[in-house]
């Protein structure tokens, strides 16, 4: 019961975005994909989410060949960098979306959906904002709506692309602690992309440090910090030295 990424390769046009990435994390882990821009971390996240397909390699999750599962059936909660909230829907309808597009047989009834939405709003501490539109929300609020929308489908895996990138430092710190606590409570395997090492080390159980489509180091934050494996990791962790 784990997430196994095995020799994944992907070209975007002529650019080798991923050049054989491998690592294994246990179910329920909180994993950071850390690296500079162009390191392939977002591409890898999109492959896990089913929005891109690798040229080569394998991904197994909970003993399933993950790559053969269609996006719609993966049940991944994907939080996009700019949240990608549906701008013409209220917050409540955004959160309800994943439930309301289910096939008729599996779709909860209207009252049940409303109840679930209310639960999720409470979970992300936005009880009063169900009737707002995305344009009326602050960055931090949008972030939490995007998360609630992703959680509504009871995801098997949570994927977050630069989840705090667009937020100011204070909100970022608050949300970070809150997200970590929530993830521990729900126990969902979570992978998030960041270029911010402090954020990766503060949040993650495991860090995948990437550069130019390759894994430079994989381990717990303590291991990576204590014993940088390559000159790149050394330089990345301590840019002041060079």
């Amino acid at each position: 019961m784990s997430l196994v990424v095995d020799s994944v390769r992907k070209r975007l046009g002529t650019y080798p975005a991923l050049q054989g990435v491998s690592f294994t994390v246990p179910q329920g882990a909180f994993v950071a994909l850390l690296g500079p821009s162009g390191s392939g971390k977002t591409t890898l996240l999109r492959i896990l989410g089913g929005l891109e397909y690798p040229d080569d390699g394998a991904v197994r999750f909970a003993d399933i060949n993950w790559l053969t599962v269609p996006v719609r059936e993966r049940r991944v909660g994907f939080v996009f960098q700019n949240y990608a909230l549906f701008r013409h829907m209220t917050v409540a309808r955004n959160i309800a979306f994943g439930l309301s597009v289910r096939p008729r047989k599996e779709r909860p009834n209207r009252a049940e959906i409303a109840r679930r939405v209310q639960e999720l709003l409470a979970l992300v501490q936005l009880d009063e904002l169900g009737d707002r539109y995305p344009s009326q929300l602050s960055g931090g609020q949008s972030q939490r709506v995007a998360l609630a929308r992703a959680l509504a489908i009871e995801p098997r895996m949570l994927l977050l692309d630069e989840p705090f990138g667009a937020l100011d430092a204070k909100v970022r710190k608050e949300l970070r602690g809150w997200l970590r606590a929530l993830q521990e409570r729900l126990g969902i395997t979570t992978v998030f992309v960041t270029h911010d090492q402090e954020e990766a080390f503060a949040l993650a159980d495991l860090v995948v440090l990437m550069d130019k489509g390759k894994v430079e180091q994989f381990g717990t934050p303590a291991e990576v910090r204590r014993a940088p494996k390559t000159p790149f990791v050394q330089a990345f962790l301590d840019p002041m030295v060079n």
Partner: protein
Amino acid sequence: MTSIAPRATDDPPLVRACLIAVAALFIGVFLVLPLVVVFHEALSAGFAAAWGAIGEHDAIAAIRLTLIVTAIVLPLNVAFGVAAAWAVTKFDFAGKSILTTLIDLPFSVSPVVAGLTYALIFGLQGWLGPWLREHGIQILFALPAIVLATLFVSFSFVARELIPLMADQGRAEEEAAISLGASGWSTFWRVTLPNIKWGLLYGVLLCNARAMGEFGAVSVVSGHIRGRTNTMPLQIQALYDDYQYVSAFALASLLAMLALVTLALKSLLEWRYADEIAAVHRH
């Protein structure tokens, strides 16, 4: 705020007055005056005469033909336009730039040339002419050719309106929708369409105006049979050539009125979704 001193960015009063006068004169002479003349000529023999001219058998037939053609062309071009814009902006595929160029083709090809190609293909001496005649199918000088020619010239409007809008909106919302379990179909109906609806309506209005007003391409393929294959613009030309000025201008007024209604609707839409217009570049 009541200072009478000119602001640093202002030109001298005389220059400003001249520029405003030139602009007003230009608009007056080239835009307003022709419209006024059309309506004035139409009503020169009184309202009853103009109304009577519109009620003539051939005029009614022309109006009906124009409406039928538009009713066929508009839904088709909306479907084509949305499909083309959706394909170009939400997917990557080989030949995409060729498709984008093709979408612009009706804008760059003269309508008369477009009409001639249909005549060349479907005419009696054309490629398909003999075969069509054998099977008793009439395309040229009949409704099918008029519809085809109109389809061609008004094809680009919806797609051209939607492509910049949809390109600007990106794919993130669609990706969010499918990752939440939505099918392609419900992603389109629930996410894409609501986001483009105002732009789409705007494109439909432009397409409609062009479809009703097209002269060149339709002129080549229609055969100019009064009461049968003359659309409104063709009928106006025919009446004008016969020195039936009141009738010609009465029908022209009706077409001009359509343009004015379209313009009013367009302004209403622009006012209604001013924010979106500000976000996306627009002509």
